[in-house]
């Protein structure tokens, strides 16, 4: 018989597996026995957890968050920024005004585009950085830079560093969870949540909400020899054997850790199933996040707003449930890495075709997450970071596409001790930072996030091959003016 998640849910938590595992858990009282991993904190934290929203393929800052009236004026005219322009794959076309209207939101009057309108409700909470600079217009390296702080492979993800620094706040769920786009991984795939030279426990765990098997190997596949009874008896026997082996070697804490890892695995079967069961969410919450009545099977033969809202909203809602259960770092991806036809933000050919469904879906889910965290009092200690690989050019590629712009792009943060506002402007084109000598870099953002978590980014180090490695390499300044 199969331990399919649906069966599991059908039978409820009082069913066989639930009982088996609950037995184990109660007998051992492991919830209390859990030794907390040591936490590296250098000052009192403002925040406890982080959500990173990642737009794969590079979202267009000037079509979403960074309003450029000059482009409206010069639309269609030859673009002359007064210097040579190196593009990734094309020659600069004419000025290309955003196809969408911007209007002011909130008390701050922040100008946001139609395709992120749902975020207008929370505009005052958001801290925009429009002068973020990247290092290259190559997708994989730009993605790595944002996820790991290095544009080379081989370094731990920010989530892994935070797992390493803060340890787990949950007994039975992983510390760092990744919710990938259901259509596939973004550039670099698993490297974006790799623990690299940190221990394997710090790597991101992939959970696929809405998928039949949301977590790999959470339950055994169908087989003729595993029954609920044999599973329970087997686990009990295993526990006994491993305990006895550990008891003879009381010095070796690896062995007790191993006994515990199986208990946690069992606990995870329960809690992961529970965290993914959105049916317990009241209808108004499901609506808030924009879940489609037909669920993850919603028709997306052609990319559309309804489907994108369902996909992203579901991940946001699962993220909130994960955060409630003590997950430290959730990484949510929008878009995959397959370029034709577009299922990501890399709108070389057609911004008006590809951006609206992705953007409106993202904005809906994100706004819901922010509002929901707020109403639960969790926004105060949860940091939300919206990021992407780089921006897109103010000039056109073809007639309605935009090429890569690593020279300036937008990130925004929210919650967790961050003050809303705009910190760092791009120039009048959205081409480069307004003050070219003082751009913001990903290191600064990582330093700020670590700071809010109570960590001095210069002191969270791991020696690897003779070098004290940091998330921020040898760079990074806390963005002090952004702190509430």
């Amino acid at each position, binding site marked *: 018989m199969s331990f399919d998640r649906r069966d599991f849910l059908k039978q409820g938590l009082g069913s066989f597996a639930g009982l088996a595992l609950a037995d184990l858990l109660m007998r051992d009282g492991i919830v209390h026995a859990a030794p907390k991993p040591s936490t590296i904190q250098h000052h009192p934290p403002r925040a406890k957890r982080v959500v990173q929203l990642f737009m794969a393929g590079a979202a267009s800052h000037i079509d979403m968050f960074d309003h450029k009236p000059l482009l409206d004026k010069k639309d269609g005219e030859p673009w002359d920024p007064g210097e040579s322009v190196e593009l990734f794959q094309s020659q600069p076309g004419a000025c290309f005004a955003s196809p969408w209207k911007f209007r002011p939101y909130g008390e701050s009057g922040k100008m946001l585009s139609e395709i992120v309108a749902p975020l207008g409700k929370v505009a005052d909470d958001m801290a925009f950085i429009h002068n973020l600079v990247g290092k290259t217009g190559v997708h994989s390296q730009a993605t790595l830079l944002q996820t790991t702080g290095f544009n080379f492979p081989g370094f731990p993800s920010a989530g892994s560093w935070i797992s390493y620094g803060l340890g787990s706040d949950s007994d039975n769920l992983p510390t760092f969870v990744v919710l990938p786009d259901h259509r*596939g991984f973004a550039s670099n795939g698993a490297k974006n949540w790799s623990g690299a030279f940190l221990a394997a426990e710090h790597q991101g765990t992939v959970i696929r909400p809405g998928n039949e098997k949301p977590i790999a190997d959470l339950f055994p596949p169908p087989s003729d020899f595993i029954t609920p009874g044999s599973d329970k008896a087997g686990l009990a026997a295993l526990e006994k054997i491993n305990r006895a082996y550990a008891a003879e070697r009381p010095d070796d804490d690896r062995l007790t850790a191993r006994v515990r*890892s199986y208990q946690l695995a069992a606990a995870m079967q329960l809690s992961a199933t529970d965290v993914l069961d959105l049916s317990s969410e009241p209808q108004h919450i499901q609506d808030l996040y924009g879940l489609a009545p037909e669920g993850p099977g919603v028709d997306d033969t052609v990319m559309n707003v309804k489907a994108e809202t369902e996909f992203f909203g579901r991940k946001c809602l699962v993220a909130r449930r994960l955060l409630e259960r003590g997950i430290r770092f959730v990484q949510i991806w929008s878009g995959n890495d397959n370029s034709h036809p577009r299922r990501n933000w890399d709108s070389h050919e057609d911004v008006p075709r590809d951006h609206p469904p992705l953007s409106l879906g993202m904005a809906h889910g994100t706004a819901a997450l922010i509002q929901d965290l707020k109403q639960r009092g969790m926004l105060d200690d949860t940091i939300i970071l919206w990021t992407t690989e780089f921006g897109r050019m103010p000039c056109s590629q073809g007639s309605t596409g935009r090429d890569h712009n690593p020279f300036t792009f937008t990130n925004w943060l929210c919650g967790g001790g961050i003050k809303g506002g705009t910190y760092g402007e791009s120039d009048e084109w959205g081409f480069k930072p307004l003050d070219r000598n003082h751009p913001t870099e990903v290191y600064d953002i990582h330093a700020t996030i670590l700071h809010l978590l109570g960590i001095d980014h210069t002191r969270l180090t791991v020696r690897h091959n003779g070098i004290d490695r940091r998330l921020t390499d040898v760079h990074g300044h806390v963005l002090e003016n952004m702190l509430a």
Partner: protein
Amino acid sequence: MLIRFSIVEVFLIGALSAAPTVTAAEQPVDFQKQIAPIFEQHCVRCHSPGNNKGELSLATFDNLQENEYVIAGKADESYLLEVVTANDGDPPAMPKEGDPLSDDDVELLRRWISEGADWPSDVIVRERSRADSSWWSLQPLADVEPPVSESIPAAWNINPIDWFVYAKLAEQGLQPNPPADRRSLIRRATYDLLGLPPSPEEVDAFVSDPDPQAYEQLIERLLDSPHYGERWGRHWLDVVRFGESNGFEKNTVINTLWPFRDYVIQSINDDKPFDRFIREHLAGDVFGGDDPNVAVGTAFLVAGPYDDVGNQDAEQIAQIRANTLDEMINSTGQAFLGMTLGCARCHDHKFDPITQRDYYAMYATFAGVRHGNTPLATPQARSERTALLKPLNKRKAELEKAQDDLKEKILKRAHDRLDHYEAIWPRPPVDRTGTEETFEPVVAKFVRLVCEAQDINPQATVFRVDEFEIWSAESKPRNVALATNGGRATGEARKIEDFPGAYGPQHAIDGKTGARFISTTPYLTIELAEPTPINRVLFSSARGEQTPEHSKFVFVADYRIEVSDDGTSWREVAHGRDRRPVGNKPDRPRSKAEPPTHRDHRLLHLETTDEERRQQAQLSRELNTVKREITRVPELPDVWIGTRNRDDAQGPFHVFLGGSPQKKGELVVPASLSPLNNVAPKYQLPGDVDESARRNKLANWITDPNNPLTPRVLANRVWHYHFGTGIVDTPNDFGYMGGRPTHPELLDFLARQLQQNGWRLKAMHRLIMTSQTYRQSSKFRDGAAAVDGDSRLLWRYPPRRLSAEEIRDTILSIAGKLDQTMGGPGFRLYHFMQDNVCTYVPLDKHGPETYRRAVYHQNARASVVDLMTEFDQPDCAFSTPHRAQTTSPLQALTMLNHSFTLDMARDLAERLQREAGKNRRRQIARAYELCYSRKPTADEISACRQLIREHNLVALCRVLLNTSELIYVQ
């Protein structure tokens, strides 16, 4: 003047030379003795050519003078003094990090400026590294006498290793453990040397062997096993960051690197002298004559990740190239020398005495190497192949010439009648942005486009279409092809596994452009909702595109439109053969290898006589035969050893200031590393010497008997793999940031032994494994642990967890499923897909083709493979000197529930039934012998029996595969 110091550097630790503080006032200030140390201690860390914060360097006088930081003779007007002086209670602006200058230092500066600010031009101020050339690991190998301990037990008084270890224990008042029992010993030794469990028969034989030399014989047997090379080869592959994909962007899999893995395994099984092995890694293609088995070693140079994306920007190209060479330099330093050379890329090494010059001398050494394939073969194989090919190629050329001549003859005739032909092509050529055909109204249920010639290569018939419209012959015409009007498109399309329909025919009738149908046959067929009168079609591949000429919009050149009632018998209603031919870039002379232009393609078709057609057919038959014979001559095997490029190696080479290829500093030439100048024979090569000579020279220098690092690093690695921790616990770093040796004399003794034994590892294994230190039990003792908790002094054998590979190999082995085939292309535990990018999807089900030893897995970088990744198999983005040993719930879930474990549980159960019959007690006993090399206790038997009785034997096997005892070696 206002100077901004924009960035605070926070990482570095400064030099620590003492500045003299008291000077007799009457003596003029001596720059070198009094001022330079101040700059060295307080300033150059952030203000040097490689790191000129505020665009200021204090390495030489230039910047100070240019920026008027120092105005000779005018101390009060010199800005330098202002920034280092406290002002109104505020601390001085500089230095930003570290202590302010003392008042005496400031006074000295003032006097120096007042006296004219003399800075001799030959004095360059550099930051000093923490360690200098007196660092322990840079010293010659010591001739050590093993220490004598009076109280040493007789058994410990035989092997010199034990003398060293015992002496250290005695210093701490510690005693070693008694010897391990034979069962533990054979298990330990077998895992250590083979990475596999001993069979129950081997255990029994060893335990009951009365020969006092039984243990020594066991070691010999294990060293002779070919599995030894698989185990120790895997260690070495970790060290040389062997990974079989490029790691960047597309992360393309590399299918020609496995010969290097086989070479490593074979070399280790052969006990090849390691100095030679190392030299082969760096320059096997240089000194190995034409022996492919030697040249393959240089795959080391290119076995790491590298960026193959390319760039339009010359500066970026230079940066990428520098990154690629940096990877080679770093890997060389770590693997052979235990040095972090990469730290000297942007500035002199902060901790070890490695200068930027040293780093860029290495840069010049490797400059001729690029990633890629090179065919590897013996001269004999090459000449045999040439001999076989020669007559075939000659015949091929003759036939091709005959074909061309015939073609030319026909074309010439056709060109003479060009007017005639052009008259039958009155219509405009096809247009990728929209090609239209109108025809008499006809009722059709099916309409299809048939490609007769493609517009890029007219000999091909595949094409792309973004939209295909079919208009009804009605008063208000409708596009009846549209899916929304009931149209249905079919046609074989390019497929992407993880994105079905990405290029499917539905794109041709979705009413939208931008996405295209990519055909793999000449057909696109539209079935209409119902039989409809139609009279017009309009189709395109680049509608609305600004650059329709781009090859991604490849289109039809000759075509026909056909209709049908039933989808089987077709009638032509329109064609494009009366259109003018497409351009086909006629402005450019075409080589014979290229397809003909569209015009010539047509002319050939129309002008050829029946007789000529027969001749052509005959020629192409013969040509095909010859080509087939050519393909039967085996190719020379391509191997990923990189390419060697004279142009890249062309100097001159410079230091890159701050690591930037755009900022060239002093000239460098290929040379040895300066920190060993006093120890090993140093060299400098002329800048224009052949790149092969540079690598060869470096290889000889690294393995020179007087180079102390190489044998120390290697001996330490061997020790590390036997005991879990090295004498130096950072096997890749013997510098300031690395660990210090727990037994420095022993390390030098072992390094000497290594050299004296001809750099052969097997002798080292014998020496180590026959020591009492190695043979003692792993039993824990509170008292000893209180003194030495990590057993670094080896009062016991430190138990270890098996590596990911060992765990998988063990499970396969005890289930009786391990496929012992050695060598050849690797297997994959992922499904590999490639379209615009490469995707590695872990397999849910591992078939028998994956039941080989894990060392033969094709380890693509960043491909997550369940059990292997969960148990800390490294990604090999960098050299991996030691494996992590984590324990996590996800590991437990993978071990419990992955179909691999379940398959193996079933196989183990079958094996138990096969080998132990139906008797449960015997099944259980057999299981324990297989899994743990021991017999079960009575309690264990009864617990196991209960599980079998109440459930089944497979359930028990699943449990056993998950036990700690299976994966820990005591």
